[in-house]
């Protein structure tokens, strides 16, 4: 194509002279001749990479691998620190018992990021080093050149070369050549067509419209419900508080409390029973978060008025204590429960295991009842809170039983009168020897 249009360029200097060859040997020989003649602005064109051409043309090794290496290392830094920031800093949460920063789990993604960075760098780096894409090239307009991407080989010497001399160049290329032709300069203008700028400006403006709409949407208020493509169960056929409803005579969707029912939160009004603090020591708002930050004086020393402390209550406390607490603290409350014994056996303190407290210690004895109740419900140190498993009444019963243990077990049996010492029963199960 384009024979006619090429003639337009007659006034300009030609792009260069092209020698076309039919086989590898000839093109290699031609390339060597051109190299040895000292030309600088020339190239050979082949349908496939010809082995030995780099040497024949004297092409220096590309530095593309170094670009790839640098970007690969950048990718590694990005992959590792990105994950560190996301999971250990920005949005840290515990999952499957792993530390928030667990390197083994971050290696696969870091690896993929390295590969992605390096691969894209290699591809785009190849294009950049070759100055591609280039959609217009004088050689593309030369009909004889078309077969060079299929089954012909070409050596092109540009007319811009300082040694360029049409006659000599033709002679140099003619040996073994199928033909030698002159490639005219590209007749098209180098810049983009003028209409392109107008179209591009309009297109750019159009693309800003959605952005502008989004911006406006984020900063405007509206009385209408938001438009939902996916409703995600946002709209359901039910009444919500503060809504009107025609179902009831008074026109309200929310109903008043019925006799004999308990409203949400009503149970928490007894602060002594629920939180172990003096009545009204907590603000109504604060009670949801529990009794954190209350002054020591606020803990009650005795038992809530709502409870009766009697033998049945103590029995209940002993039973609950043996179920929930003794596995760690031991039946006697001395901290030698089954879990503690096992942990000692496998020397778990190496990994940061913290032994259960001895409930008979003077420190625990010194705590108020309210405080012990709070710890049973909310935990302390590595102990978890048991509020979800043990109802408040039972936690108070456990407090009572802990007091009973403190009163009975902390006494040194050897101080008992001899007659009574003989009668003392053997130690209960699980309280025998400690670890080695």
């Amino acid at each position, binding site marked *: 194509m384009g024979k006619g249009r090429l003639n337009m360029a007659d006034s300009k200097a030609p792009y260069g002279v092209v020698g076309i060859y039919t086989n*590898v040997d000839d093109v290699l020989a031609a390339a060597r001749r051109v190299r040895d003649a000292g030309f600088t602005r020339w190239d*050979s064109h*082949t349908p496939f*990479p*010809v082995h030995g*051409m780099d040497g024949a043309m004297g092409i220096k090794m590309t530095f593309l691998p170094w670009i790839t290496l640098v970007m690969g290392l950048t990718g590694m830094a990005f992959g590792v620190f990105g994950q560190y920031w996301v999971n250990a800093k920005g949005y840290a949460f515990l999952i499957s018992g792993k530390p928030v920063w667990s390197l083994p789990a971050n290696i*696969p993604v870091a690896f993929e990021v390295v*590969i992605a960075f390096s691969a894209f760098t290699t591809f785009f780096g*190849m294009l950049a080093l070759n100055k591609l894409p280039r959609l217009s090239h004088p050689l593309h307009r030369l009909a004889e050149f078309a077969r060079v991407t*299929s089954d012909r080989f070409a050596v092109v010497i540009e007319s811009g070369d300082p040694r360029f001399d049409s006659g000599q160049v033709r002679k140099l290329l003619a040996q073994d050549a199928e033909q030698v032709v002159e490639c005219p300069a590209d007749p098209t203008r180098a810049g983009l067509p003028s209409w392109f700028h107008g179209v591009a400006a309009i297109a750019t403006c159009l693309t800003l419209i959605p952005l502008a709409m989004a911006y406006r949407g984020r900063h405007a208020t509206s009385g209408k419900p938001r438009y939902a493509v996916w409703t995600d169960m946002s709209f359901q056929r039910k009444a919500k508080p503060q809504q009107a409803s025609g179902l009831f005579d008074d026109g309200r969707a929310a109903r008043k409390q019925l006799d004999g029912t308990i409203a949400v939160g009503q149970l928490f009004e007894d602060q002594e029973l629920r939180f172990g603090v003096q009545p009204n020591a907590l603000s109504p708002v604060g009670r949801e978060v529990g009794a954190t930050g209350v002054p020591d004086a606020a803990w009650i020393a005795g038992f809530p008025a709502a409870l009766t402390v009697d033998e049945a209550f103590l029995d209940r406390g002993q039973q609950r204590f043996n179920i929930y607490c003794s596995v760690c603290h031991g039946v006697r409350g001395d901290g030698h429960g089954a879990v503690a014994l096992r942990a000692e056996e496998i020397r778990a303190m190496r990994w940061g295991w913290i032994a259960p407290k001895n409930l008979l210690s003077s420190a625990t004895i010194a705590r108020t009842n309210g405080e012990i109740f709070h710890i049973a419900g909310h935990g302390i140190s590595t102990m978890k809170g048991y509020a979800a498993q043990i109802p408040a009444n039972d936690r108070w019963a456990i407090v009572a039983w802990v007091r009973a243990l403190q009163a009975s077990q902390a006494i040194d049996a050897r101080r008992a009168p001899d007659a009574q010492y003989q009668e003392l029963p053997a130690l209960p199960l699980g309280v025998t020897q400690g670890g080695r």
Partner: protein
Amino acid sequence: MAITDPTIDLGGQDPRVRPQLVEGNNNFTTVTQMVAGIPEQPVAKTDKLWIALFLLSLSVLGVLGACLAYLITTGVGVWGNNNPVFWGWPIVNFVFWVGIGHAGTLISAVLYLTRQNWRTAVNRSAEAMTIFAVICAGMFPGVHVGRIWVAYFLAPVPNQMSMWPNFRSPLLWDVFAVSTYFSVSLVFWYMGMVPDLATLRDRSTNKWRRMIYGIFSLGWTGSSRHWHVYERAYGILAALATPLVLSVHSVVSFDFAVSQLPGWHTTIFPPYFVAGAIFSGFAMVLTLMIPARQYFNLGHIITMTHIDVMCRILMATGMLVGYAYMIEFFTAWYGGVMVERFAFVNRAFGNYWWAYWIMVSCNVIFPQLFWSKKMRRNLVVVMLVSITTNIGMWFERFVITVTSLSRDFLPSSWAYFRPTWVDILTFVGSFGLFMTLFLLFIRFLPFVAMSEVKIVMPSAHAGHGHTDGHGPKSHANHGSHNGEGAPQHG
């Protein structure tokens, strides 16, 4: 001196002679014509068989679209997934497709690095197959998330919830691995195709084709200075894609193996999955390549030698998979873990015994036919075995996913998994997507990497251009010599 008597008959396997990679009396011109002739066929003159197949694929693709629309508007309850088999067919299909998507990049990258020159005949179409298979694969976990409109949660993009994904989860590794694999494979495929697109551009007689091929060939002129950078880039991409291929199916295997579920939690999973992926990928390459080769008359380029080699790889990877089956069974016993032993006995003799034995026969037993050269060169047998391998590898993923989940630690939660019609039609539909893309590819793009096939032809090397009595056969494969003292010699 070594070559004594070239006339000794060694039954066609004379070790002194490398088989020619391009058979027949072909040269650069005929190879170009053979390959470029396919996409150059005018649209109006498209072959009727192609149109029929394309329409069929389109209608199956329509089934997929309908199933997905139904699924998305209704919810994942339309699938057979139940408690405890939360991962039913969608994940089986995902692993199946992503496994198939391993052969292409393996052929282009690993075989490039190991200088297996026969790869040039099949790498282009295998890479295309890879990309289409990964598209099919990515679709399944994509819709499996349920509310697909919040699938962006998977990507670490700043959002209104100030929430970030959990990088300690293998499911997120999968997102990264599969998307990296897809994009890098696409780049690799496209980059390999640029010179061939330039060939199509320069040969086209139609203005539109010239323009479209022209844009996508990026102005490639075949400049040797460009080829130099291009070849380095290709080598680097191959070196990057090789560990990438290993990593992708390893990460898929981590989805299973990091859990504590018996039958999933075993250390051989990563290489075992990779071997299985290559196995299924090669099976799919054979399944597609043999009909295409016959249909397009490419027997001189995709020769029986190529098919023979691929059959041997198929058998080798099949045995690697068999090795993993065996080691898993042995270790289930040797490890002494009760639940692990149960899981494996249950696999072979439990509710899904039939699936297990389909898997074993298709993956381990049938490929043994390829010990015989005669079988490797019988196209019907090769076709049948490659198809049974595809079936077997689907069942492998089914066996792993479903048998282990349906019999977990708690007998009270045991359940039997049954697919629903939506499951089945979605899977069938994914073949429609795959075939539609593949048919478009073979119709409009160069099916064989012309420029790469030309490199492995004897006349591509100095000293072979002229007939000088030095038969081209003697080192068609490796011998590549020029008179230039290559600068690297020290």
